């Protein structure tokens, strides 16, 4: 026997990144096998963004536009782009776990010498890459509708908030994936998993994707206060939209007397510190339950 194929108990960082890259490559290869489907998906993205931009330019009055920096196209395009990335964080862990389970890959994956969470993240990685194509399409629609272009100096901070935003809601993603085993939410159909459905719905309703949070009734604004997406979207708009209001735009901004951008970052950090460990804990609990009740096996 050769010695190089001896099984390992743990992988180092380089080997772990190698596994993540092979999972991303797999998803890329599978997507290119169904390229027509991918093209149709992106045409749909373009149409959705264009509809939002049309509605914005046609229906938003000057009074409302002032609240969002006078440029609804920029407002909604940034909202859509960032919410897409955060939606990926919310949905990818459950999708990945569900995909592995239904394609009989889960048991062999569990025998890999690295935690299932890492494998799930590697599998989700490609979804983030495809999101960049989606964001580029949103950007294209924005340019077509006269979106004000941000200065190049804000690109790096905006990218930082983008990463922060994805991490901040990843806890919801793992919480959603935990439902796969905790409440047997295994059906591979849309909205069959309650956490993902709830967070996605709330994200669109109360986090300021399409309209300012202040336009909502007070109790819904309170709900939005507990969603990191609210602060991520506000923070990134402050960077990318030139005429975005400098003063308080969210209820929390007025409460602590801090600079709104600093308040955004603190709120994101606090919520992440709560949601991410909760999600990971629940995910591990789900796995533990599945190992007890046999929920990891489907076909064999």
């Amino acid at each position, binding site marked *: *026997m*050769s010695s*190089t*194929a*001896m*099984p*390992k*108990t*743990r*992988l180092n960082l380089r*080997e772990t990144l*190698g*596994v993540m890259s*092979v*999972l991303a*490559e*797999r998803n890329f*290869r*599978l997507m290119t*096998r169904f390229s027509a489907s991918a093209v149709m998906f992106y045409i749909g993205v373009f149409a959705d963004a264009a509809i939002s931009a049309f509605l914005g330019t046609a229906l938003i009055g000057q009074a409302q536009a002032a609240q969002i920096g006078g440029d609804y196209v920029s407002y909604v395009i940034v909202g859509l782009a960032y919410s897409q990335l955060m939606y990926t964080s919310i949905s990818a862990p459950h999708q990945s776990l569900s995909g592995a389970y239904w*394609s*009989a*890959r889960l*048991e*062999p*994956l*569990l*025998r*890999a*010498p*690295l935690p299932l969470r890492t*494998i799930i993240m590697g599998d989700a990685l490609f979804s983030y890459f495809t999101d960049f194509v989606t964001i580029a399409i949103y950007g294209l629609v924005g340019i077509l509708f006269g979106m004000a272009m941000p200065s190049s100096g804000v690109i790096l901070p905006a990218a930082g908030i983008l990463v922060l935003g994805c991490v901040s809601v990843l806890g919801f993603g793992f919480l959603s994936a935990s439902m796969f085993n905790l*409440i*047997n939410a295994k*059906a591979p159909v849309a909205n069959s998993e309650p956490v993902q459905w709830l967070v996605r719905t709330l994200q669109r309703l109360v986090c300021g994707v399409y309209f300012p949070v202040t336009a909502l009734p007070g109790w819904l604004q309170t709900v939005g206060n507990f969603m990191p997406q609210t602060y991520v979207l506000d923070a990134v708009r402050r960077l990318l939209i030139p005429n975005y209001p400098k003063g308080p735009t969210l209820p929390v901004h007025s409460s602590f007397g801090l600079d709104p951008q600093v308040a955004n970052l603190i709120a994101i950090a606090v919520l992440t510190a709560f949601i991410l460990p909760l999600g990971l804990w629940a995910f591990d609990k789900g796995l*533990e339950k599945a*190992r*007890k*009740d*046999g929920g*990891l*096996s489907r*076909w*064999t």
Partner: protein
Amino acid sequence: MARAIVTRGLRKEFPYLNPSPNMSTSDQWLEYLLSLITGKNATGMGVEKRRTVAVESLDLEVEEGEFFGLLGPNGAGKSTSIKMLATILAPTAGTATINGYDLVRDWRAVRASINVVHSGGWLGFDHELSIRWNLQAWARIYGLSKKEAARRTQEVLDIVGLSDKAEETSGTLSSGQRQRLALAKGFLMEAPILLCDEPTVGLDPNSAAAVRSFIKDDVNRKRGITVLLTTHYMQEADQLCDRVAIMDKGRIVACDTPDRLKASVQAKAILMEVRNFRIEMLFDFKKEHGQWLVTEKLDQNGNGSLRVLCSPREAESTITTAVEACGGQVVGWSRDDISLEDVFIVLTGRRLAA
């Protein structure tokens, strides 16, 4: 000789919910959540929590380099046992060591000590991508570098004889080739122990023979890998295994070499060639002579053979007379070898296969 696998009282119970048939899935969720909150079985609310014992108590000692079989009918607890040993299922009670590592405490080392092959192993392949790419990807997921993964993939493809199919997709393979593909995946890492869960289920006789020969000759004899095989095919267990544990209803009812197990049976088997022994006569025969275990291969006219497992003291003429008394005609008889199926029947009173 060192022991590769040792289990002591390994037990697996599955909790499960038994919902009322007219409850929707969401109702079941709600009821289950209520039962979790109240801490009570939700009996009376439509859902009842019960337990199924899949493995009552598993006590095994498998030596290094041994080819060990777990033989039993469907539902005996064989696959559950394999899944516990593969760390996919958590045992409810008992202890086990694999390659010297504790199954629960040292689960990482246990995983590094085993390869697992099961009948549906090829299902985990992406059927849109080539066999070579799939195997390389799994090798990398298991921790090999890109270069090592490519080399090892070629090695296992050569071992299982699928090198010429490497650039095709798994959808183009025959069922036997798919099973060899599952074996190839099971051999990407060179672990000292192979857990093989019914690897020949659903295969035609030639493919099954090729898979058996590969596991016995290439894996066990040539490479010295310890094999724990589960099967409900008695001939497979008889042909391959150094020792066999017969499993029934989650328990091991006997464990020894196939020859010693067969020798332990205090019975003899008589094979009779019969004519005009129609089905109603057969029923009468079985009813009147319940002390004999009778299996038959008869055509619609009642022509064929009867196999009677009886006490060694029973005279062949007694059985011949009994057949003729029921209306059949005996044209000849011979002694048949005792099989592992006979052992199972004597131990449990039931047949191995349906």
